[in-house]
């Protein structure tokens, strides 16, 4: 209960003006981006390879690369992250090593992405010999997403009512049956929401991929994870650094395409979550 909110006074007015300013700032970003991107919009833009001439430049390889990276990140980070969260919440003792690991994971969620890029370069690109490939990028982004997936999954699992677990244990369910039958279904919507936020963030990351050596200029769309690392965020970056006005337009176009990819992903996650909740009612 917050009571009636319509009452106005000096502080309320000031806060309202600031809030309006925030909205205005957001709209400015949107309008600038959309306005620039408009002039880049043509059917070929989505599929054409990159080019030294802005007019002919497209985001084909970058778009394919981002979809590859997203798929790799989800495939690598989601199972391991959820498994870790289940272990820490349902199996591990509350004290000792598990508690320390849990605490470290929470703080690693705050480490900047570019640092993960440096670690990914040493571990994956050079250490495991993956080079500047999509696979190296996917592994690095998965490591970047992992702490967030673990932290949000743990929170979702912890929010499952105790009584639900106890009722199942009391009826002779094994721990695995409790986890699979009660805990995971009840926690699933929260896990999907949290993980989706994590993957939205990693899919928009340019910094770690730049560190790995993402290609700014690619003439063919990647077909396997071993192909060179291309992505929309690094493409936006590469075109933004060109001083010609024409490239500002294609950079904005790539940025809008990136936002659309993120939007589609979030809508998909929302659909999945809706199905889950509909199914369990």
């Amino acid at each position, binding site marked *: 209960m917050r009571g009636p909110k319509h009452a106005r006074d000096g502080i309320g007015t000031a806060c309202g003006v600031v809030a309006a300013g925030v909205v205005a700032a957001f709209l400015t970003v949107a309008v600038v981006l959309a306005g620039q991107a408009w002039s880049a919009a043509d059917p070929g833009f989505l599929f054409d390879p990159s080019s030294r001439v802005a007019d002919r430049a497209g985001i084909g390889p970058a778009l394919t690369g981002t979809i590859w990276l997203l798929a790799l990140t989800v495939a690598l980070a989601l199972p391991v992250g959820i498994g870790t969260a289940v272990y820490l919440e349902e199996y591990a*003792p*509350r*004290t000792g090593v598990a508690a320390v690991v849990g605490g470290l994971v929470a703080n690693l969620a705050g480490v900047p992405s570019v640092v993960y890029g440096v670690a990914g370069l040493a571990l994956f690109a050079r250490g495991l010999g993956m080079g500047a490939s999509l696979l190296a990028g996917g592994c690095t982004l998965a490591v970047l997403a992992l702490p967030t997936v673990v932290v949000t999954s743990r929170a979702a699992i912890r929010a499952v*009512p105790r*009584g*639900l*677990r*106890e*009722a*199942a*244990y*009391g*009826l*002779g*369910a*094994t721990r695995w*049956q409790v986890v699979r*039958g*009660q805990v995971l279904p*009840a926690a699933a919507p929260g896990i999907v929401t949290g993980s989706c936020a994590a993957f939205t963030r990693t899919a928009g990351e340019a910094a770690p991929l730049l560190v790995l050596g993402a290609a700014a200029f690619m003439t063919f769309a990647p077909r396997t994870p071993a192909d060179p690392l291309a992505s929309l965020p690094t493409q936006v970056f590469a075109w933004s650094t060109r001083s010609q006005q024409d490239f500002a337009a294609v950079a904005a176009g790539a940025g809008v395409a990136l936002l659309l990819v993120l939007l589609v992903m979030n809508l998909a996650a929302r659909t999945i979550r809706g199905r889950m909740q509909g199914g*369990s*009612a």
Partner: protein
Amino acid sequence: MIPVLAAEDLTVRFGRRTALAGVTLEVPRGRIVSVIGPSGGGKTTLLRAFNRMNELKPGVTTTGTVRFNGVDLHGDEVDAVEVRRRIGMVFQQATLFPRSILDNVVFGPRAGGHTGDKLLELAEEVLVAVGLWSEVGEDIDRPAMQLSAGQRQRLCIARTLALRPEVLLLDEPTSALDPAATARIESLVHSLKRDHTIVLATHGRRQAARLSDFTAYLAGGELIEYGPTESLFTNPRDRRTESYLTGRIE
């Protein structure tokens, strides 16, 4: 004759807090034993010790022994999951699985690997036993969450009965219910005595007097007094029991 359940010098600690201190008590076959006492006195912990539910909480240590038909519940050969199937428990809060009535009733047998039409017969049988069969109009595919509070608790009892347990542990099953629903549960508990040994933790002194053959008074984790219900209520040997029964301790 071997008692169905026997606790011997049973001590349970949660971290540094002692919830149960050296309790020794026997539950005879086919009887109702009620456990009374103030909140936090150890009633729930004692019940949960009988089917090894305590060990699910972090930081718990149990010493002493609990025997079920003479077998040490913490013995090497013994499996906690099987213990919980033989010694069924109904909790204070009626937590239903967010599924159909049928799914709730046959949860235990299914978890034990049973499938097929026999489950439907079993479901009907236990729903009749708790008086829900006619009330839900035999429509057992509807969501369990639609039931009233009293019906929920009876469904919880039904799904425990579906395990065909030897012992029923009832942890304050009526504490959240109105008088009418409470009366129904009480008559149900009375009828279940025929096939089960029952341990009933309760806040209600009158409920204990009405239902049980034996009564244990637990306070501060200690077993203060244990004996036939009638003599404990009419002629308590310990002054603390007397104070509790006359309402001077809550």
